[in-house]
C-alpha cells in the first residue's frame, strides 16, 4: 500500500468514517488475503502457529470499525493457525454484562472478549482471567523478539494490569484531547487552552448562541464511561486523590472544585441539552459547527471529519488536555483489550493466546490500520512504532492540525494509571458517581451535596 502521500482530500475521499461500507470488505478480501505469501511476516516468529490446529474459539467484540477490520482479516489467522474463530458482536453496554455472566458462571462461552480496563480489578479478584505473563514467557507460545510487548502503548498496558500483572492485551485504544475550531479561534486571536482557566475563557470568547455557536461541551449523560469519564480527568487535574488513608474518597475540596468547574462550564457555555449528551452527540453537534471546543476521545476525529455530514472539515485542530490547578494534564487511558477466560480448557487457552498475539502484533495492527484495503482506517492502533511510521502518520494528519502530535504527547506524558479508581466494585461505584455528577449538572444538588451523598453510598460498597 502506498499511503505515504496521503493528502487530507484523498484521506477523506477514502471515507475514513463511513462505517457503513465496512463489512462489504470481508467477502472481497477473504480469498485474496489468506494466501500463503501474506503469512510470511507471521511465520518469522519462532513459534509453531499450527500447534492447536482444529480448536474453535468464540470472541465477543462490539460493533465498531476497528473490530470489523480485524474480523475481515480473521481468515488469515485461520489459515496461519488452523484455529477457527467465531466472532460475536454485542452492543457496548451489554458486552460487559454478558461477559460477566459468562465469567461468573464459568461456562467458557467466550474465549476472549473486548474488555473494559475498569473491569480487570473485578476479574482479578475472582481469578476469572489468566495472567498474560504465563503465555508471554512460554517460549513455545511466544517469540518475544518478534512480538515486542514493549512496543505496545505502556499506558494502555498499565491500565490493563492489576498489581503489576497484565491481564488483557490492548488491541485498540484512545486518549482524550482538546478538539477546537481553528477558524473561530483564529478570528478571535485565541490559542488552544494550556490550562483549564483559558479553556473557559476561550469558550466564553467564541460563545454566541444567537449565531448558534456554543462555547464548549463535555459529556453530560450519566454513566461510568460517560460523565465520569471526563470528570475523572478533572478530578485528578484538580489534585484529587481517589484513595485517602487507603479509603476510597470521592468527596472533599478537590472533588468539589473539579465538579463545580464542570457544572459552571456546562451551565454557561454548553447547549442546555448537553446535560444528556454522550460523545456521539457532542461530535455530531461539533460537526454541524455549533460547538467551539470539546474534550473527548481522539477517535471522535473521524466523526467530525466525516464528509457525509460534517460542515467543519478543514477547520478542526487538536491540543492536549489543558492543565489543571495541580499543574497536571490527565487524559483517559481507555482501550479495548483481550483477556483469556480462565474457565477454558488448557489447550483452548493457548489457542486463544495465539489469537490475541496475532491481533495485537505489529503486522496485524498495520494491516487493520493504514494498510487496510477497506474504507475505514483505525485511529487507535496499539503500537508506538506504528504511531511513528510515516505511512500511518501521514494518513492520520488528514484529521487536522496537530492531531498526531497531540495524541502521541498525551499517550506518552499525560496518562495517569489512577485516572479512575481501580477497584473490583468499580461498576457499582462508577454508576453512583455518575448519578452524583448528573444531579449536580442538572442543578438538583450542589457539587458538595452530590459528592457527599455519593461518598455515603460508596462506603458500604467498599466494605461489602
Amino acid at each position, binding site marked *: 500500500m502506498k499511503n505515504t502521500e496521503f493528502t487530507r482530500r484523498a484521506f477523506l475521499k477514502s471515507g475514513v468514517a463511513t*462505517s457503513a461500507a465496512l*463489512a462489504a470488505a470481508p467477502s472481497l478480501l477473504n480469498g485474496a488475503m489468506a494466501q500463503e505469501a501474506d503469512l510470511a511476516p507471521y511465520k518469522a516468529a519462532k513459534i509453531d502457529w499450527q500447534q492447536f490446529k482444529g480448536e474453535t474459539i468464540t470472541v465477543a467484540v*462490539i*460493533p465498531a470499525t476497528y473490530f470489523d477490520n480485524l474480523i475481515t482479516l480473521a481468515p488469515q489467522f485461520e489459515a496461519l493457525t488452523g484455529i477457527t474463530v467465531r466472532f460475536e458482536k454485542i452492543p*457496548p453496554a451489554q458486552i460487559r454484562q*454478558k461477559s460477566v455472566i459468562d465469567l461468573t458462571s464459568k*461456562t467458557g462461552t467466550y474465549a476472549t472478549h473486548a474488555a473494559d480496563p475498569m473491569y480487570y480489578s473485578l476479574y482479578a479478584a475472582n481469578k476469572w482471567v489468566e495472567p498474560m505473563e504465563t503465555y508471554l514467557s512460554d517460549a513455545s507460545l511466544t517469540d518475544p523478539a518478534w512480538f515486542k510487548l514493549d512496543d505496545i502503548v505502556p499506558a494502555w498496558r498499565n491500565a490493563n494490569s492489576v498489581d503489576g500483572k497484565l491481564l488483557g492485551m490492548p488491541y485498540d485504544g484512545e486518549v482524550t484531547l482538546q478538539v477546537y475550531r481553528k477558524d473561530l479561534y483564529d478570528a478571535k486571536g485565541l490559542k488552544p487552552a494550556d490550562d483549564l482557566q483559558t479553556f473557559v475563557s476561550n469558550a466564553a470568547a467564541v460563545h454566541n448562541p444567537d449565531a448558534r455557536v456554543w462555547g464548549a461541551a463535555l459529556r453530560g449523560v450519566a454513566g461510568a464511561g460517560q460523565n465520569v469519564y471526563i470528570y475523572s480527568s478533572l478530578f485528578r487535574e484538580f489534585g484529587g486523590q481517589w484513595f485517602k488513608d487507603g479509603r476510597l474518597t470521592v468527596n472533599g475540596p478537590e472533588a468539589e472544585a473539579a465538579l463545580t468547574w464542570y457544572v459552571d462550564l456546562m451551565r454557561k457555555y454548553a447547549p442546555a441539552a448537553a446535560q444528556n449528551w454522550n460523545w456521539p452527540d457532542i461530535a*455530531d453537534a461539533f460537526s454541524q459547527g455549533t460547538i467551539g471546543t470539546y474534550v473527548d476521545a481522539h477517535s471522535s476525529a473521524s466523526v467530525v471529519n466525516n464528509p457525509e455530514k460534517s460542515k467543519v472539515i478543514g477547520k478542526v485542530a487538536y491540543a492536549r488536555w489543558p492543565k489543571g490547578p495541580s499543574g497536571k494534564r490527565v487524559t483517559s487511558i481507555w482501550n479495548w483489550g483481550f483477556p483469556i477466560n480462565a474457565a477454558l480448557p488448557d489447550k483452548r487457552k493457548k489457542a486463544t493466546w495465539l489469537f490475541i498475539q496475532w491481533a495485537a502484533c505489529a503486522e496485524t495492527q498495520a494491516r487493520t490500520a493504514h494498510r487496510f484495503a477497506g474504507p475505514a482506517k483505525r485511529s487507535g492502533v496499539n503500537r508506538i512504532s506504528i504511531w511513528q511510521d510515516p505511512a500511518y502518520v501521514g494518513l492520520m494528519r488528514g484529521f487536522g492540525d496537530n492531531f498526531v502530535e497531540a495524541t502521541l504527547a498525551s499517550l506518552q506524558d499525560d496518562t495517569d494509571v489512577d485516572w479512575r479508581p481501580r477497584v473490583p466494585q468499580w461498576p457499582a461505584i462508577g454508576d453512583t458517581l455518575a448519578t452524583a455528577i448528573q444531579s449536580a449538572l442538572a442543578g438538583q444538588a450542589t457539587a458538595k451535596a452530590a459528592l457527599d451523598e455519593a461518598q455515603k453510598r460508596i462506603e458500604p460498597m467498599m466494605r461489602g
Partner: protein
Amino acid sequence: MIDKRFRIAAVIGISLVFLLAWVFPIVWSVMNSLKTEQDVLAYPPKFLFAPTLAAYRDVLFGSGSILPNLLSSFIISIGTTIVTMIMAVPAAYALARLRVPGKRFAGFYVLATQMLPPVGIIIPYFLILRNIGWMDTYQGIILIYLSFSLPFAIWLLVSYFEDIPFEMEEAAYIDGASRWKTLWRIIIPQVRGGIAVTVVFVFLNAWNEFLFAVVLSGNTVRPVTIAMFNFVSVEQTLWTKLAAVSVLAMLPVIVLGIVAQKHIVKGLTVGAVKGGGRR
C-alpha cells in the same frame, strides 16, 4: 348546549394533544429514515426535504443487511405466540371454569412468576440453556419467552372466559356437545376479541424483547432489536439507518394491530349484544 359543545371541543382538543405526543416520535422516525445524514442534523429541523430511500437500501440490501435479523425476530415471535396460545387457551379455560383442586394456588403461582425482576433470573436462564445446549437456538429463546408470555396470556384470557355466561355452555351440553366441542365451537368464538388482544400482546412482547435476547442469543439467533444497535456504534450514531430499521421493525406490529383490531372490535360488540355477567 354551549356547555356541551365546549365539552366536546375540550375532549377533542385534549385527545389531539395526546395523539400528537404519541404520533410525533413515529412521524419523526419515518422522516429521518428518508433523509440524508446531513438533513437529520440540520437546524432548524427540516420538514421539507428531498426524500431518499438510501437508508432503506443500505439496511435491507447493504453489507450489514437486517433481513436475517427480521427473519430471526419473526421466528421467535411467531413461535412464541403459537406455543403460548396453544397452552394458554385451555389453561385459562380450566382456571375460569373447571373445579380443579388447587386452582387458586395455581392462579397465584402463575402470577408469581411474573413478579421476579427479569435481571434476577437471567443468570439461571443462561446456565440452564448453556447446560442443555440450547444457547443461541430458537427453541431456547422461545422456551425462555414462554416463561413470561404464558402467565401473562393465561391471566389475560381468564378474565375473558369468566365473562361468558355459563348458560351458553349449558345450552351446548344439552344439545349433546362434549366439553372440547363446546370450548372449540361456542366459547372460543365468544372470546375471539380476548384472544386477538392476547396474540397482539404476546407477539409484541416477544418482538420487542431485548434483555434476554442479548444475553441468550448469539450469531445464529439475532433478533432485530439487537441488530439495531449496530447503528449506534461507539464511534457514531448512524441516524438515518437507525430510523430506517426502527420503521421496518415497527411495521409488522402495526400490521398485526390493524388486523387484530377488527376482531377486537367484533369481540366487544358480540359481548355487548348478548350481555352476560361475571360468574
